[in-house]
């Protein structure tokens, strides 16, 4: 069964303390891996799409990487405004094209 697992469930960092979030997946026919940021009570905000192992993308303090089994979201020198839930999702081809399978997310808190 397709599965997306994110770890840790929650992460508390001091401002400036870099760390990584993990997303592991067991999906056949991976079409893409997606990272989103979600603030409380809001819809997910698109961050990155990764398509193949070895690919990396960066945006401000965030860098996403992809291997054949997992993806990492690296946060460098985080600030309190980076506090949010980070969601990972995967997309498949074939009959489920267009459907995104989400993990439960990692709740990140950055304190001053």
């Amino acid at each position, binding site marked *: 069964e397709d599965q*997306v697992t994110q770890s840790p469930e929650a992460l508390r960092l001091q401002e400036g303390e870099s760390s990584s979030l993990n997303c592991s997946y067991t999906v056949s026919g991976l079409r893409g891996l997606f990272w*989103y940021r979600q603030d409380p009570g*809001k819809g997910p905000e*698109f961050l990155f799409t990764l398509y193949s192992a070895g690919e990396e993308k960066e945006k401000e303090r965030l860098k996403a990487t992809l291997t054949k089994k997992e993806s990492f979201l690296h946060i460098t020198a985080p600030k309190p405004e980076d506090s949010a839930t980070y969601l990972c999702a995967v997309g498949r081809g074939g009959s489920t094209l267009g459907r995104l399978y*989400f*993990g*439960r997310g990692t709740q990140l808190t950055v304190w001053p």
Partner: protein
Amino acid sequence: DAGVTQSPTHLIKTRGQHVTLRCSPISGHKSVSWYQQVLGQGPQFIFQYYEKEERGRGNFPDRFSARQFPNYSSELNVNALLLGDSALYLCASSLDRTNTEAFFGQGTRLTVV
């Protein structure tokens, strides 16, 4: 440029009632997908519509239905509401069926009492 807009933002309904949620995609986007997000969980896929046709359906009962209009806006309908239907309902739009970059609205918070 307007993003994905959903209405209403909040809704309280009684068990057994019917609800209609609405979504307007980003201009030029032809695909609309609906997701249900229960507190503490990731979004769960309900439907995808592309070019006004249903292109995918998740594991939800027949009480859930949707449609897409000629202007690509969409409605999600839920009949015979149950307490367990309480959730944040999210609409996502993308240019095409692949959802390569799917952009979400702010969601509709549905509470069933």
